[in-house]
């Protein structure tokens, strides 16, 4: 009887094995990347673009056979632009086996997820749209890398340009959040260092997502600045621009104004865009279309697939996934340490050109784009007429600078 039972058990195992092997094979045929994204709440517009860019990158990778022969799949959750929720979701997604994390969009969430989740679970995380320099400087941990120019680089690139002009009285406006504060502080630091005659005559930090900027506009005009530098974007910039136009703000300051633009904001602004003012961008579509065949193929491919031009946030998210994929192929492994070793040492190709990461801060040496707002007939929407492409390596924090900022 015992022998019969053993035979039956062995038969059952033998029958089950092929199925079991199939399950194992199926699991091994895919690699999961994950993101706790700001798909609702204050940063929802950016979150949706990041999701689009991530999904498009995965589509492109899978059409080419995946990464190390494995199909890539995305698991994501909506954190409601809530840092605590982002931590919980990112932890859960990584514990379910994801090998790479694309960051939340708000700087506050990106910083805590980097420190508390990616750093502790030793899984690579790419900061896509969040560009506070704290991510790679003050709060750096070895498993994070930043794909866009950080607030340090943007502020330095802009300050270098403006310091050559005759402006002395500056106004600074930024939404009151980590990335905006970081950008504003850096700009104040650099512009006063590079131009000793420069002074900040007024600064304002309205709430992120404010619906009324009239009081801010009045205050800035009353201070009579030579130049108004802002770290406003998205809905904040749309609201500010409309209310500023209505009060004759841009005429009064003779268009001596600069803001952070992205493709979607320019498109939404339409005829309300402040033509003639300055702006900075991270991945302007009109530049990508003309800069290289890769850039053109990316923009047209995205438009065919998703029905619209990629925004700057979309391109950052796309580059995050593509950079990770290149690092994995180079390391010939999905394991975190070899992947991060590749990030720190090799050269990467992207639609914004070839770049490297800083070996000790994992900050991508990508360019900062500065231009003038114009109505682009080809795109049929406002765009920046790019006048300066500032190389990332020329404005990134030096080793001495980031060591000082890390307190080391």
């Amino acid at each position, binding site marked *: 009887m015992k022998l019969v039972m053993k035979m039956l058990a062995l038969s059952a195992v033998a029958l089950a094995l092929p199925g079991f092997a199939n399950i194992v094979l199926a699991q091994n045929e895919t690699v999961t990347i994950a993101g706790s994204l700001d*798909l*609702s*709440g*204050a940063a*929802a*517009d950016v*979150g*949706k*673009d990041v999701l689009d860019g991530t999904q498009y990158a995965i589509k492109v990778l899978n059409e080419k056979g995946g990464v190390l022969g494995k199909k890539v799949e995305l698991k994501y959750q909506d954190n409601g632009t809530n840092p605590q929720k982002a931590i919980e979701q990112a932890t859960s997604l990584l514990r379910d086996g994801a090998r790479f994390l694309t960051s939340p969009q708000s700087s506050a969430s990106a910083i805590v997820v980097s420190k508390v989740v990616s750093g502790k679970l030793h899984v690579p995380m790419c900061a896509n749209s969040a560009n506070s320099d704290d991510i790679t400087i003050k709060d750096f941990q070895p498993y994070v890398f930043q794909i866009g120019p950080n607030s340090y680089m943007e502020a330095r690139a802009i300050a270098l340009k403006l310091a050559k002009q005759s402006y002395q009285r500056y106004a600074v406006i930024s939404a*009151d959040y980590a990335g905006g504060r970081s950008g504003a502080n850096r700009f104040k630091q650099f512009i006063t260092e590079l131009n000793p005659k420069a002074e900040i005559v007024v*600064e*304002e*930090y*309205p*709430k992120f*997502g*404010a*619906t*009324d*900027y*009239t*009081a*801010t506009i*009045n*205050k800035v005009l*009353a201070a009579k600045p030579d130049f108004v530098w802002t770290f406003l974007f*998205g*809905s*904040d910039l*749309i*609201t500010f621009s*409309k*209310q500023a*136009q*209505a*009060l*004759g703000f841009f005429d009064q300051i003779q268009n001596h104004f600069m803001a952070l633009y992205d493709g*979607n*904001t320019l498109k*939404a*602004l*339409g*005829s*309300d865009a402040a033509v003639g003012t300055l702006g900075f961008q991270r991945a302007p579509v009109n530049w990508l279309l003309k800069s290289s065949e890769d850039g053109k193929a990316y923009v047209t491919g995205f438009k065919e697939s998703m029905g619209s031009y990629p925004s700057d946030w979309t391109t950052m998210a796309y580059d995050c996934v593509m950079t990770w994929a290149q690092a994995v192929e180079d390391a010939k492994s999905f394991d975190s340490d070899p992947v991060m070793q590749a990030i720190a040492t090799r050269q990467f190709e992207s639609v914004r050109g070839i770049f490297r990461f800083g070996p000790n801060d994992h900050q991508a040496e990508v360019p900062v784009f500065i231009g003038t707002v114009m109505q682009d007939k080809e795109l049929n929407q406002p765009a920046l007429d790019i006048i300066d492409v500032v190389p990332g390596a020329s404005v990134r924090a030096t080793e001495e600078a980031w060591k000082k900022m890390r307190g080391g």
Partner: protein
Amino acid sequence: MLQLLLTQILAGIATGALYFLVASGLTLVWGAMGIVNLAHGSLFMIAAFATSSVVLYLGPGAGLATSLIVVPIGVAAIAIALEILLFRRVYKAGIWGQLLLTFGLVLVLNDGVRTLYGSLPRSVVAPDLLRGFIELFGLRVAKYQTLVLGATIVVAIFLWCLLTRSRTGRLIRAAVDDPAMLGAVGVDVRTLRTRVMGIAAFLAGVAGVIAAPRGAVNATLDVQIVIIAFAVIVIGGLGSVWGALVAAMLVGIAEAVSTMFIDQGSEMVIFVLMVIVLFVRPTGFKTIVGQS
């Protein structure tokens, strides 16, 4: 300094006018129905998005004029349907049941708007007639702000007529004072509640239409506006329309003037003001200005 102070006071009045348009409906619903309607801001947001569609279709001038008539009626119809289908089921459930329902509605309506319009912000072009600014005694006021002020005056007159000259208004005032007694004397409280809900939503609709060309239209408008509106009705005294008017102006002015002295968090001023008013007068301005 004096010039800037006067400019900020003027800006504050215009901002307060928009707050009043939203808060007046919210306080009516609270006063007459005893409901804390968290979804009131959602109706405002729906109106703003609907306006963006109408303006896109008909152009800035005709679009805004049409929206001012059609959209508030549409929003009122949505609110009446919600009152009949959902709110009636929770009147007896007490404050927690009402909060759960209206919070649920905030989420559902927000997701509905995102599904329909997407997550990207929209910009509604203002008519040429309302672009630019006018100067009053050397003070600049955006022409569009004058529309907001005009609409607020019209709404205030409408509410005054409604509350003092109509039977519905008298019943609403009676409901604010003693809703239980109103039912006991044979008034159809169910129909009255539906009417109040419709009127409040109509006001939220007017506010949403008027707010749309002022700034970005996005899916966070619901929560942003309702938080401020709640502060306004608490300061004004729950259920008091005229208290809400005074409070809205005070909040708008305090917010604008505070930017002269602090660089950040002018919204914090609203809540500081609320604490001070409640500390001095726990019932808000209601006792000063009278109820509705």
